[in-house]
Protein backbone atom coordinates (compact mmCIF):
# COMPACT_ATOMS: atom_id res chain seq x y z
CA UNK A 1 0.00 0.00 0.00
CA UNK A 2 2.79 2.40 0.92
CA UNK A 3 4.50 1.73 -2.36
CA UNK A 4 1.27 2.47 -4.25
CA UNK A 5 0.83 5.74 -2.38
CA UNK A 6 4.39 6.77 -3.24
CA UNK A 7 3.91 5.91 -6.91
CA UNK A 8 0.74 8.05 -7.06
CA UNK A 9 2.47 10.95 -5.32
CA UNK A 10 5.40 10.74 -7.71
CA UNK A 11 3.04 10.60 -10.68
CA UNK A 12 4.34 7.27 -11.97
CA UNK A 13 1.19 6.28 -13.78
CA UNK A 14 2.18 2.95 -15.31
CA UNK A 15 3.92 1.65 -12.23
CA UNK A 16 1.04 2.76 -10.01
CA UNK A 17 -1.54 1.00 -12.20
CA UNK A 18 0.67 -2.10 -12.22
CA UNK A 19 0.89 -2.02 -8.44
CA UNK A 20 -2.90 -1.77 -8.19
CA UNK A 21 -3.25 -4.89 -10.34
CA UNK A 22 -0.75 -6.73 -8.14
CA UNK A 23 -2.56 -5.75 -4.97
CA UNK A 24 -5.97 -6.68 -6.38
CA UNK A 25 -4.60 -10.00 -7.57
CA UNK A 26 -3.15 -10.53 -4.12
CA UNK A 27 -6.57 -10.18 -2.58
CA UNK A 28 -6.65 -6.55 -1.53
CA UNK A 29 -10.02 -4.89 -1.84
CA UNK A 30 -10.65 -1.91 -4.10
CA UNK A 31 -12.04 -0.11 -1.08
CA UNK A 32 -8.81 -0.57 0.84
CA UNK A 33 -6.65 0.54 -2.08
CA UNK A 34 -8.61 3.73 -2.41
CA UNK A 35 -8.96 4.56 1.26
CA UNK A 36 -5.54 3.49 2.45
CA UNK A 37 -3.31 4.46 -0.45
CA UNK A 38 -4.73 6.39 -3.38
CA UNK A 39 -6.97 8.96 -1.71
CA UNK A 40 -4.46 9.81 1.06
CA UNK A 41 -1.71 10.12 -1.56
CA UNK A 42 -3.73 12.57 -3.64
CA UNK A 43 -4.74 14.49 -0.56
CA UNK A 44 -1.13 14.87 0.41
CA UNK A 45 -0.25 16.16 -3.06
CA UNK A 46 -3.24 18.50 -2.96
CA UNK A 47 -2.17 19.87 0.40
CA UNK A 48 1.40 20.40 -0.83
CA UNK A 49 0.00 22.18 -3.88
CA UNK A 50 -2.14 24.41 -1.71
CA UNK A 51 0.92 25.22 0.41
CA UNK A 52 2.93 26.09 -2.69
CA UNK A 53 5.35 23.23 -2.16
CA UNK A 54 4.53 21.46 -5.40
CA UNK A 55 3.26 23.04 -8.61
CA UNK A 56 0.77 22.36 -11.34
CA UNK A 57 2.77 19.79 -13.37
CA UNK A 58 3.45 17.73 -10.25
CA UNK A 59 -0.23 17.88 -9.34
CA UNK A 60 -1.18 16.86 -12.87
CA UNK A 61 1.13 13.85 -13.06
CA UNK A 62 -0.07 12.65 -9.66
CA UNK A 63 -3.69 13.06 -10.76
CA UNK A 64 -3.01 11.14 -13.96
CA UNK A 65 -1.44 8.35 -11.97
CA UNK A 66 -4.56 8.34 -9.81
CA UNK A 67 -6.76 8.18 -12.91
CA UNK A 68 -4.73 5.27 -14.23
CA UNK A 69 -5.30 3.44 -10.94
CA UNK A 70 -9.01 4.26 -11.07
CA UNK A 71 -9.25 2.73 -14.54
CA UNK A 72 -7.96 -0.54 -13.08
CA UNK A 73 -10.17 -0.36 -10.01
CA UNK A 74 -13.44 0.66 -11.66
CA UNK A 75 -14.40 -2.87 -12.80
CA UNK A 76 -13.90 -4.08 -9.25
CA UNK A 77 -16.07 -1.25 -7.99
CA UNK A 78 -18.79 -2.12 -10.48
CA UNK A 79 -18.91 -5.63 -9.07
CA UNK A 80 -19.73 -4.68 -5.54
CA UNK A 81 -16.82 -2.43 -4.63
CA UNK A 82 -17.02 0.65 -2.50
CA UNK A 83 -18.71 2.97 -5.01
CA UNK A 84 -18.26 6.68 -5.28
CA UNK A 85 -18.56 9.20 -2.51
CA UNK A 86 -20.88 11.31 -4.60
CA UNK A 87 -21.37 12.83 -8.02
CA UNK A 88 -20.16 16.18 -9.34
CA UNK A 89 -20.76 17.78 -12.74
CA UNK A 90 -18.13 20.32 -13.79
CA UNK A 91 -17.52 22.55 -16.79
CA UNK A 92 -16.12 25.85 -18.03
CA UNK A 93 -18.80 28.38 -18.95
CA UNK A 94 -19.96 29.44 -22.36
CA UNK A 95 -17.46 31.67 -24.10
CA UNK A 96 -14.48 30.42 -22.15
CA UNK A 97 -12.08 27.69 -23.25
CA UNK A 98 -9.73 27.72 -20.27
CA UNK A 99 -9.68 24.36 -18.60
CA UNK A 100 -6.69 23.95 -16.32
CA UNK A 101 -8.48 25.06 -13.16
CA UNK A 102 -11.52 23.02 -14.04
CA UNK A 103 -9.37 19.97 -14.81
CA UNK A 104 -7.54 20.37 -11.55
CA UNK A 105 -10.78 20.45 -9.62
CA UNK A 106 -11.99 17.39 -11.51
CA UNK A 107 -8.83 15.46 -10.79
CA UNK A 108 -8.84 16.46 -7.13
CA UNK A 109 -12.45 15.38 -6.77
CA UNK A 110 -11.75 12.06 -8.48
CA UNK A 111 -8.76 11.67 -6.25
CA UNK A 112 -11.05 12.12 -3.27
CA UNK A 113 -13.40 9.41 -4.51
CA UNK A 114 -16.09 11.38 -6.34
CA UNK A 115 -17.57 10.47 -9.69
CA UNK A 116 -16.89 13.44 -11.92
CA UNK A 117 -18.79 14.22 -15.10
CA UNK A 118 -16.71 16.74 -16.99
CA UNK A 119 -18.67 18.67 -19.62
CA UNK A 120 -15.52 20.31 -21.00
CA UNK A 121 -15.21 23.94 -22.02
CA UNK A 122 -17.50 26.53 -23.59
CA UNK A 123 -20.51 24.89 -21.96
CA UNK A 124 -23.83 26.63 -22.47
CA UNK A 125 -26.29 27.13 -19.59
CA UNK A 126 -28.62 24.76 -21.42
CA UNK A 127 -26.01 22.02 -21.48
CA UNK A 128 -25.24 22.46 -17.79
CA UNK A 129 -28.96 22.24 -17.10
CA UNK A 130 -29.38 19.11 -19.20
CA UNK A 131 -26.44 17.47 -17.42
CA UNK A 132 -27.88 18.24 -14.00
CA UNK A 133 -31.21 16.79 -15.07
CA UNK A 134 -29.57 13.68 -16.53
CA UNK A 135 -27.01 12.90 -13.83
CA UNK A 136 -28.60 14.36 -10.69
CA UNK A 137 -25.27 15.37 -9.13
CA UNK A 138 -25.04 16.61 -5.58
CA UNK A 139 -22.69 19.37 -6.73
CA UNK A 140 -22.28 21.44 -9.88
CA UNK A 141 -18.89 23.13 -10.42
CA UNK A 142 -18.76 26.09 -12.80
CA UNK A 143 -15.45 27.55 -13.90
CA UNK A 144 -14.57 30.80 -15.70
CA UNK A 145 -11.15 32.30 -16.06
CA UNK A 146 -12.12 35.55 -17.69
CA UNK A 147 -13.85 38.51 -16.17
CA UNK A 148 -15.71 38.80 -19.45
CA UNK A 149 -17.23 35.34 -19.11
CA UNK A 150 -18.34 35.66 -15.51
CA UNK A 151 -21.81 36.66 -16.62
CA UNK A 152 -22.26 33.17 -18.05
CA UNK A 153 -22.00 31.79 -14.49
CA UNK A 154 -25.03 33.83 -13.54
CA UNK A 155 -26.81 32.74 -16.73
CA UNK A 156 -26.14 29.11 -15.83
CA UNK A 157 -27.54 29.47 -12.32
CA UNK A 158 -30.55 31.35 -13.68
CA UNK A 159 -31.13 28.56 -16.20
CA UNK A 160 -31.03 25.94 -13.43
CA UNK A 161 -33.56 27.97 -11.47
CA UNK A 162 -35.85 28.32 -14.47
CA UNK A 163 -35.67 24.58 -15.03
CA UNK A 164 -36.65 23.97 -11.41
CA UNK A 165 -33.34 22.23 -10.69
CA UNK A 166 -31.55 24.78 -8.57
CA UNK A 167 -32.70 23.55 -5.17
CA UNK A 168 -31.55 20.01 -5.86
CA UNK A 169 -27.89 20.80 -6.45
CA UNK A 170 -25.18 22.77 -4.68
CA UNK A 171 -23.38 25.15 -7.00
CA UNK A 172 -19.72 26.03 -6.55
CA UNK A 173 -17.86 28.45 -8.75
CA UNK A 174 -14.19 29.15 -9.29
CA UNK A 175 -11.68 30.80 -11.58
CA UNK A 176 -8.93 33.36 -11.51
CA UNK A 177 -11.19 36.36 -11.92
CA UNK A 178 -13.82 35.22 -9.46
CA UNK A 179 -13.96 36.45 -5.89
CA UNK A 180 -15.99 35.24 -2.93
CA UNK A 181 -18.57 37.99 -2.91
CA UNK A 182 -19.39 37.30 -6.55
CA UNK A 183 -20.72 33.85 -5.59
CA UNK A 184 -23.33 35.46 -3.37
CA UNK A 185 -24.16 38.08 -5.95
CA UNK A 186 -25.06 35.53 -8.59
CA UNK A 187 -26.73 33.00 -6.30
CA UNK A 188 -24.00 30.35 -6.10
CA UNK A 189 -23.48 28.42 -2.87
CA UNK A 190 -19.72 28.51 -2.74
CA UNK A 191 -16.62 30.07 -4.21
CA UNK A 192 -13.55 27.87 -4.23
CA UNK A 193 -10.22 29.66 -4.58
CA UNK A 194 -8.47 26.34 -5.26
CA UNK A 195 -9.14 22.69 -5.97
CA UNK A 196 -8.69 21.61 -2.37
CA UNK A 197 -11.39 23.94 -1.12
CA UNK A 198 -13.65 22.70 -3.93
CA UNK A 199 -13.07 19.15 -2.74
CA UNK A 200 -13.83 20.12 0.86
CA UNK A 201 -17.04 21.86 -0.20
CA UNK A 202 -18.14 18.81 -2.18
CA UNK A 203 -17.54 16.60 0.85
CA UNK A 204 -19.56 18.94 2.99
CA UNK A 205 -22.34 19.04 0.42
CA UNK A 206 -22.77 15.26 0.37
CA UNK A 207 -22.73 14.99 4.13
CA UNK A 208 -25.76 17.28 4.51
Amino acid at each position, binding site marked *: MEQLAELVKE*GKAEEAAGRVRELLDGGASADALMKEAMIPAMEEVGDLFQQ*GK*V*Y*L*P*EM*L*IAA*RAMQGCMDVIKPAMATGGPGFLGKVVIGTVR*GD*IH*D*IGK*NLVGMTLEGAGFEVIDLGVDVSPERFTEAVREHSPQVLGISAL*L*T*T*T*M*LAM*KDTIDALREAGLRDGVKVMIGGA*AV*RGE*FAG*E*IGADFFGPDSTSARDFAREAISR
Partner: protein
Amino acid sequence: MDIWKEQSVEARKGRWRALWELEDLPRPLWFVPASPMLTAAQMYGMQRLPMDELFTDRDLQFGISMTVNAAFEEMQRASYRDDFIPHLQPQMGVGVFASAFGCEVAFPPDQMPWTYPVIKAGDPADKVYELETPTVRSGLLGDMLDYARYFDEKAEHRYPIAMTDLQGPMDTAYLVWDSCDFMVAMYEHPAEVHYLMRLCTDLIKDFVKEFRRQVKEMVPAHFPPVYLPDGMGLAVSEDVMAVLSPSLWEEFSLPYVNELSEEFGGVLVHSCGNFEHQVPALKKVRGLRGINFGVSETRFDAIWEAFAEDTVVIPHCTAETLVADFKNAFEWVEYVLKRKTHNRGLALMVIPVGGNVHKTDRDIALGRPVDGFTDAPDFGDRIWELIDRYA
Protein backbone atom coordinates in the same frame (compact mmCIF):
# COMPACT_ATOMS: atom_id res chain seq x y z
CA MET B 1 16.57 70.06 -22.98
CA ASP B 2 15.67 69.22 -19.40
CA ILE B 3 13.98 65.89 -19.85
CA TRP B 4 12.48 66.05 -16.37
CA LYS B 5 10.74 69.39 -16.93
CA GLU B 6 9.61 69.21 -20.53
CA GLN B 7 6.67 67.11 -21.63
CA SER B 8 7.59 66.66 -25.29
CA VAL B 9 7.74 63.16 -26.72
CA GLU B 10 11.52 63.45 -26.98
CA ALA B 11 11.80 64.46 -23.34
CA ARG B 12 9.63 61.55 -22.30
CA LYS B 13 11.69 59.16 -24.41
CA GLY B 14 14.77 60.53 -22.68
CA ARG B 15 13.23 59.70 -19.33
CA TRP B 16 12.56 56.12 -20.45
CA ARG B 17 16.15 55.76 -21.66
CA ALA B 18 17.36 56.97 -18.28
CA LEU B 19 15.11 54.40 -16.65
CA TRP B 20 16.42 51.50 -18.72
CA GLU B 21 20.01 52.68 -18.16
CA LEU B 22 19.33 52.51 -14.43
CA GLU B 23 20.32 56.11 -13.87
CA ASP B 24 19.42 57.74 -10.58
CA LEU B 25 16.11 59.42 -11.29
CA PRO B 26 14.61 62.49 -9.58
CA ARG B 27 11.31 60.58 -9.41
CA PRO B 28 9.88 57.26 -10.54
CA LEU B 29 8.25 57.13 -13.95
CA TRP B 30 4.50 56.56 -14.10
CA PHE B 31 2.19 55.94 -16.98
CA VAL B 32 -1.41 55.23 -17.81
CA PRO B 33 -1.32 52.08 -19.98
CA ALA B 34 -2.99 53.69 -22.97
CA SER B 35 -2.22 50.84 -25.34
CA PRO B 36 -4.47 51.77 -28.26
CA MET B 37 -5.75 48.32 -29.16
CA LEU B 38 -6.23 47.07 -25.62
CA THR B 39 -8.10 50.27 -24.83
CA ALA B 40 -10.18 49.89 -27.97
CA ALA B 41 -10.96 46.26 -27.09
CA GLN B 42 -12.12 47.34 -23.65
CA MET B 43 -14.36 49.99 -25.19
CA TYR B 44 -15.77 47.47 -27.63
CA GLY B 45 -16.50 45.10 -24.75
CA MET B 46 -18.25 47.78 -22.74
CA GLN B 47 -20.36 48.92 -25.64
CA ARG B 48 -21.06 45.40 -26.93
CA LEU B 49 -19.55 46.20 -30.31
CA PRO B 50 -18.31 43.38 -32.58
CA MET B 51 -14.83 42.69 -31.27
CA ASP B 52 -14.06 40.27 -34.09
CA GLU B 53 -14.13 43.15 -36.56
CA LEU B 54 -11.73 45.13 -34.42
CA PHE B 55 -9.16 42.35 -34.52
CA THR B 56 -9.49 41.40 -38.15
CA ASP B 57 -10.10 44.68 -40.00
CA ARG B 58 -6.83 46.46 -40.61
CA ASP B 59 -8.35 49.85 -41.41
CA LEU B 60 -10.72 49.72 -38.47
CA GLN B 61 -7.83 48.81 -36.21
CA PHE B 62 -5.75 51.67 -37.52
CA GLY B 63 -8.55 54.23 -37.35
CA ILE B 64 -9.55 53.36 -33.81
CA SER B 65 -5.95 53.28 -32.65
CA MET B 66 -5.42 56.78 -34.00
CA THR B 67 -8.62 57.96 -32.30
CA VAL B 68 -7.60 56.41 -28.98
CA ASN B 69 -4.16 57.96 -29.26
CA ALA B 70 -5.62 61.40 -29.95
CA ALA B 71 -7.94 61.09 -26.97
CA PHE B 72 -5.19 59.96 -24.64
CA GLU B 73 -2.79 62.61 -25.86
CA GLU B 74 -5.44 65.16 -24.94
CA MET B 75 -5.86 63.57 -21.51
CA GLN B 76 -2.10 63.51 -21.12
CA ARG B 77 -1.94 67.23 -21.79
CA ALA B 78 -4.98 68.14 -19.71
CA SER B 79 -4.63 65.83 -16.75
CA TYR B 80 -2.13 63.00 -16.60
CA ARG B 81 1.14 64.62 -17.73
CA ASP B 82 2.52 61.11 -17.35
CA ASP B 83 5.45 59.40 -19.07
CA PHE B 84 3.48 57.27 -21.54
CA ILE B 85 4.64 57.31 -25.16
CA PRO B 86 1.70 56.85 -27.56
CA HIS B 87 2.30 54.17 -30.14
CA LEU B 88 0.51 51.99 -32.64
CA GLN B 89 0.37 48.24 -32.33
CA PRO B 90 -0.96 45.55 -34.66
CA GLN B 91 -3.03 43.16 -32.57
CA MET B 92 -4.77 39.85 -33.09
CA GLY B 93 -4.50 38.55 -29.55
CA VAL B 94 -2.15 36.17 -27.77
CA GLY B 95 -2.23 33.44 -30.38
CA VAL B 96 -0.48 34.94 -33.38
CA PHE B 97 2.76 33.04 -32.84
CA ALA B 98 0.85 29.85 -32.05
CA SER B 99 -1.12 30.32 -35.26
CA ALA B 100 2.13 29.98 -37.18
CA PHE B 101 2.22 26.35 -35.99
CA GLY B 102 -1.26 25.69 -37.31
CA CYS B 103 -3.32 26.64 -34.27
CA GLU B 104 -6.77 27.92 -35.09
CA VAL B 105 -7.47 31.37 -33.70
CA ALA B 106 -11.16 32.16 -33.24
CA PHE B 107 -12.43 35.72 -33.22
CA PRO B 108 -15.65 35.79 -31.20
CA PRO B 109 -17.76 38.96 -31.48
CA ASP B 110 -17.88 39.53 -27.74
CA GLN B 111 -14.41 38.52 -26.59
CA MET B 112 -10.71 38.70 -27.17
CA PRO B 113 -9.50 36.08 -29.68
CA TRP B 114 -9.20 32.44 -28.63
CA THR B 115 -6.48 29.98 -29.58
CA TYR B 116 -7.03 26.26 -29.97
CA PRO B 117 -4.02 23.97 -29.52
CA VAL B 118 -2.88 22.07 -32.57
CA ILE B 119 -1.53 19.25 -30.40
CA LYS B 120 -4.72 18.33 -28.62
CA ALA B 121 -5.35 16.61 -25.29
CA GLY B 122 -4.45 12.97 -25.59
CA ASP B 123 -2.36 13.33 -28.74
CA PRO B 124 0.96 11.47 -28.63
CA ALA B 125 3.91 13.65 -27.70
CA ASP B 126 5.78 12.78 -30.89
CA LYS B 127 3.14 14.71 -32.84
CA VAL B 128 5.40 17.64 -32.13
CA TYR B 129 7.77 16.31 -34.81
CA GLU B 130 5.00 16.57 -37.39
CA LEU B 131 4.73 20.34 -36.96
CA GLU B 132 5.94 22.28 -39.95
CA THR B 133 8.73 24.68 -39.13
CA PRO B 134 6.94 28.03 -39.24
CA THR B 135 8.14 31.07 -41.11
CA VAL B 136 7.74 34.72 -40.17
CA ARG B 137 4.66 34.89 -42.40
CA SER B 138 2.99 31.66 -41.27
CA GLY B 139 -0.49 31.82 -39.78
CA LEU B 140 -1.45 35.32 -38.68
CA LEU B 141 2.14 36.53 -38.45
CA GLY B 142 2.16 37.71 -42.07
CA ASP B 143 -0.87 39.87 -41.33
CA MET B 144 0.88 41.35 -38.31
CA LEU B 145 3.89 42.31 -40.42
CA ASP B 146 1.63 43.84 -43.04
CA TYR B 147 -0.43 45.70 -40.44
CA ALA B 148 2.77 47.05 -38.87
CA ARG B 149 4.06 48.44 -42.14
CA TYR B 150 0.65 49.81 -43.08
CA PHE B 151 0.15 51.54 -39.71
CA ASP B 152 3.61 53.07 -39.88
CA GLU B 153 3.18 54.38 -43.39
CA LYS B 154 -0.39 55.57 -42.97
CA ALA B 155 0.48 57.45 -39.76
CA GLU B 156 3.49 58.88 -41.59
CA HIS B 157 5.83 57.56 -38.90
CA ARG B 158 4.20 59.75 -36.28
CA TYR B 159 4.19 57.00 -33.67
CA PRO B 160 6.57 54.16 -32.86
CA ILE B 161 5.17 50.75 -33.73
CA ALA B 162 4.99 48.40 -30.77
CA MET B 163 5.51 44.67 -31.16
CA THR B 164 2.38 42.60 -31.62
CA ASP B 165 1.43 40.32 -28.73
CA LEU B 166 4.60 38.36 -28.14
CA GLN B 167 4.05 35.47 -25.83
CA GLY B 168 7.45 34.06 -24.91
CA PRO B 169 8.63 30.68 -26.14
CA MET B 170 7.07 28.80 -23.25
CA ASP B 171 3.76 30.67 -23.35
CA THR B 172 3.60 30.02 -27.09
CA ALA B 173 4.42 26.34 -26.70
CA TYR B 174 1.70 26.14 -24.05
CA LEU B 175 -0.81 27.40 -26.61
CA VAL B 176 0.42 25.08 -29.36
CA TRP B 177 0.25 21.95 -27.20
CA ASP B 178 -2.73 21.25 -24.94
CA SER B 179 -1.66 22.97 -21.76
CA CYS B 180 -2.18 20.07 -19.34
CA ASP B 181 -0.49 17.58 -21.65
CA PHE B 182 2.34 20.04 -22.20
CA MET B 183 3.04 20.27 -18.47
CA VAL B 184 2.88 16.51 -18.05
CA ALA B 185 5.26 16.16 -21.01
CA MET B 186 7.88 18.13 -19.10
CA TYR B 187 8.20 14.99 -16.98
CA GLU B 188 7.34 12.31 -19.48
CA HIS B 189 8.60 13.67 -22.81
CA PRO B 190 11.26 16.30 -22.12
CA ALA B 191 12.91 15.93 -25.54
CA GLU B 192 9.65 16.79 -27.29
CA VAL B 193 9.14 19.81 -25.05
CA HIS B 194 12.64 21.08 -25.85
CA TYR B 195 12.03 20.47 -29.54
CA LEU B 196 8.95 22.71 -29.49
CA MET B 197 10.71 25.32 -27.37
CA ARG B 198 13.48 25.47 -29.96
CA LEU B 199 10.96 26.03 -32.77
CA CYS B 200 9.17 28.76 -30.80
CA THR B 201 12.41 30.54 -29.92
CA ASP B 202 13.71 30.51 -33.47
CA LEU B 203 10.39 31.80 -34.77
CA ILE B 204 10.33 34.67 -32.27
CA LYS B 205 13.88 35.68 -33.14
CA ASP B 206 13.20 35.67 -36.86
CA PHE B 207 9.88 37.46 -36.52
CA VAL B 208 11.17 40.30 -34.34
CA LYS B 209 13.97 40.95 -36.82
CA GLU B 210 11.48 40.98 -39.70
CA PHE B 211 9.09 43.25 -37.78
CA ARG B 212 11.99 45.65 -37.26
CA ARG B 213 12.52 45.76 -41.02
CA GLN B 214 8.91 46.75 -41.65
CA VAL B 215 8.79 49.96 -39.60
CA LYS B 216 10.78 53.10 -38.93
CA GLU B 217 10.84 52.77 -35.15
CA MET B 218 10.00 49.48 -33.50
CA VAL B 219 9.27 49.30 -29.79
CA PRO B 220 10.03 45.68 -28.89
CA ALA B 221 7.49 45.59 -26.07
CA HIS B 222 3.90 44.42 -26.46
CA PHE B 223 3.09 44.50 -22.76
CA PRO B 224 3.47 46.39 -20.53
CA PRO B 225 2.96 49.27 -22.98
CA VAL B 226 6.25 50.96 -22.15
CA TYR B 227 8.73 52.78 -24.31
CA LEU B 228 11.61 50.34 -24.70
CA PRO B 229 14.14 51.51 -27.29
CA ASP B 230 15.04 48.90 -29.86
CA GLY B 231 18.32 47.26 -28.88
CA MET B 232 17.68 47.56 -25.15
CA GLY B 233 15.70 44.37 -24.85
CA LEU B 234 12.63 42.43 -25.84
CA ALA B 235 9.46 42.08 -23.76
CA VAL B 236 8.34 38.49 -23.33
CA SER B 237 5.27 37.17 -21.56
CA GLU B 238 6.16 34.34 -19.21
CA ASP B 239 2.80 33.68 -17.58
CA VAL B 240 3.32 29.94 -17.40
CA MET B 241 6.22 30.31 -14.99
CA ALA B 242 3.72 31.13 -12.25
CA VAL B 243 2.46 27.54 -12.23
CA LEU B 244 5.80 25.77 -12.66
CA SER B 245 8.40 24.77 -10.12
CA PRO B 246 11.67 26.70 -10.35
CA SER B 247 13.49 23.58 -11.50
CA LEU B 248 11.10 22.99 -14.42
CA TRP B 249 11.24 26.64 -15.45
CA GLU B 250 15.02 26.62 -15.32
CA GLU B 251 15.16 23.45 -17.39
CA PHE B 252 12.57 24.29 -20.03
CA SER B 253 12.40 28.08 -20.30
CA LEU B 254 15.49 29.79 -18.95
CA PRO B 255 17.85 28.70 -21.76
CA TYR B 256 15.48 30.09 -24.38
CA VAL B 257 14.81 33.35 -22.52
CA ASN B 258 18.56 33.80 -22.24
CA GLU B 259 18.90 33.24 -25.95
CA LEU B 260 16.37 35.99 -26.69
CA SER B 261 18.13 38.25 -24.23
CA GLU B 262 21.45 37.78 -25.95
CA GLU B 263 19.88 38.42 -29.34
CA PHE B 264 17.95 41.58 -28.46
CA GLY B 265 20.00 43.27 -25.76
CA GLY B 266 18.10 42.03 -22.74
CA VAL B 267 14.61 40.93 -21.79
CA LEU B 268 11.69 42.54 -20.03
CA VAL B 269 9.77 39.69 -18.43
CA HIS B 270 6.03 40.05 -17.88
CA SER B 271 3.93 37.62 -15.90
CA CYS B 272 0.38 37.94 -14.64
CA GLY B 273 0.46 35.26 -11.96
CA ASN B 274 2.22 34.93 -8.64
CA PHE B 275 5.80 34.07 -9.54
CA GLU B 276 7.49 34.95 -6.29
CA HIS B 277 8.83 31.40 -6.05
CA GLN B 278 10.67 31.98 -9.34
CA VAL B 279 12.73 34.91 -8.07
CA PRO B 280 15.95 32.87 -7.64
CA ALA B 281 15.49 31.37 -11.10
CA LEU B 282 14.83 34.79 -12.64
CA LYS B 283 18.06 36.04 -11.13
CA LYS B 284 19.75 33.60 -13.50
CA VAL B 285 18.38 35.36 -16.59
CA ARG B 286 21.31 36.96 -18.36
CA GLY B 287 20.56 40.58 -19.23
CA LEU B 288 17.29 40.80 -17.32
CA ARG B 289 16.35 44.34 -18.23
CA GLY B 290 13.04 44.56 -16.41
CA ILE B 291 10.28 42.78 -14.54
CA ASN B 292 6.58 43.57 -14.88
CA PHE B 293 4.11 42.08 -12.46
CA GLY B 294 0.73 42.56 -10.79
CA VAL B 295 1.05 43.76 -7.23
CA SER B 296 -2.08 41.89 -6.15
CA GLU B 297 -0.55 38.64 -7.37
CA THR B 298 3.14 38.97 -6.58
CA ARG B 299 4.31 40.93 -3.54
CA PHE B 300 5.96 44.21 -4.43
CA ASP B 301 8.41 43.87 -1.53
CA ALA B 302 9.67 40.51 -2.77
CA ILE B 303 10.38 41.81 -6.26
CA TRP B 304 11.83 45.08 -5.10
CA GLU B 305 14.18 43.42 -2.65
CA ALA B 306 15.42 40.96 -5.26
CA PHE B 307 15.69 43.16 -8.34
CA ALA B 308 15.71 46.87 -7.50
CA GLU B 309 19.49 47.22 -7.60
CA ASP B 310 20.07 46.08 -11.15
CA THR B 311 16.73 45.67 -12.94
CA VAL B 312 13.85 47.91 -13.94
CA VAL B 313 10.78 47.13 -11.85
CA ILE B 314 7.35 47.86 -13.33
CA PRO B 315 4.48 47.06 -10.97
CA HIS B 316 0.92 47.22 -12.19
CA CYS B 317 -2.57 46.56 -10.95
CA THR B 318 -5.49 45.57 -13.12
CA ALA B 319 -8.81 47.35 -12.72
CA GLU B 320 -10.39 44.27 -11.21
CA THR B 321 -7.72 43.57 -8.60
CA LEU B 322 -7.34 47.26 -7.93
CA VAL B 323 -10.93 47.49 -6.83
CA ALA B 324 -10.71 44.23 -4.90
CA ASP B 325 -7.45 44.86 -3.06
CA PHE B 326 -7.16 48.64 -2.98
CA LYS B 327 -9.82 51.30 -2.87
CA ASN B 328 -8.55 53.11 -5.92
CA ALA B 329 -5.48 53.92 -7.95
CA PHE B 330 -4.27 56.50 -5.45
CA GLU B 331 -4.17 54.03 -2.61
CA TRP B 332 -2.31 51.57 -4.83
CA VAL B 333 0.24 54.16 -5.97
CA GLU B 334 0.90 55.18 -2.38
CA TYR B 335 1.28 51.52 -1.40
CA VAL B 336 4.08 51.12 -3.94
CA LEU B 337 5.76 54.46 -3.34
CA LYS B 338 5.94 53.90 0.40
CA ARG B 339 7.88 50.69 -0.19
CA LYS B 340 10.46 51.82 -2.73
CA THR B 341 13.91 52.64 -1.43
CA HIS B 342 15.06 54.67 -4.43
CA ASN B 343 13.72 55.94 -7.74
CA ARG B 344 16.20 54.15 -9.97
CA GLY B 345 14.56 51.71 -12.34
CA LEU B 346 11.01 52.17 -11.05
CA ALA B 347 8.04 52.80 -13.36
CA LEU B 348 4.45 52.49 -12.16
CA MET B 349 1.73 51.44 -14.52
CA VAL B 350 -1.37 53.17 -13.18
CA ILE B 351 -4.90 52.22 -14.21
CA PRO B 352 -7.03 55.37 -14.03
CA VAL B 353 -9.69 54.11 -11.68
CA GLY B 354 -10.67 57.31 -9.98
CA GLY B 355 -12.43 56.15 -6.87
CA ASN B 356 -15.98 57.38 -7.25
CA VAL B 357 -16.81 55.33 -10.28
CA HIS B 358 -15.09 52.11 -11.08
CA LYS B 359 -16.20 50.20 -14.06
CA THR B 360 -14.94 46.69 -14.06
CA ASP B 361 -15.87 43.68 -16.08
CA ARG B 362 -17.67 42.37 -13.05
CA ASP B 363 -19.92 45.40 -13.00
CA ILE B 364 -20.71 44.77 -16.62
CA ALA B 365 -21.31 41.09 -15.90
CA LEU B 366 -23.81 41.96 -13.21
CA GLY B 367 -25.48 44.56 -15.40
CA ARG B 368 -24.45 47.52 -13.29
CA PRO B 369 -24.45 50.92 -14.97
CA VAL B 370 -21.33 51.78 -16.92
CA ASP B 371 -20.44 55.39 -16.41
CA GLY B 372 -16.99 55.56 -17.88
CA PHE B 373 -13.47 54.51 -17.10
CA THR B 374 -12.75 57.27 -14.64
CA ASP B 375 -14.69 60.17 -13.32
CA ALA B 376 -11.83 61.90 -11.60
CA PRO B 377 -10.84 65.03 -13.52
CA ASP B 378 -8.08 65.63 -10.99
CA PHE B 379 -6.67 62.13 -11.48
CA GLY B 380 -3.31 63.36 -12.79
CA ASP B 381 -2.97 65.99 -10.06
CA ARG B 382 -3.59 63.45 -7.35
CA ILE B 383 -1.03 61.00 -8.76
CA TRP B 384 1.50 63.80 -9.09
CA GLU B 385 0.88 64.85 -5.52
CA LEU B 386 1.88 61.34 -4.44
CA ILE B 387 4.84 61.12 -6.81
CA ASP B 388 6.16 64.45 -5.53
CA ARG B 389 5.55 63.55 -1.90
CA TYR B 390 7.51 60.31 -2.11
CA ALA B 391 10.13 61.37 -4.68
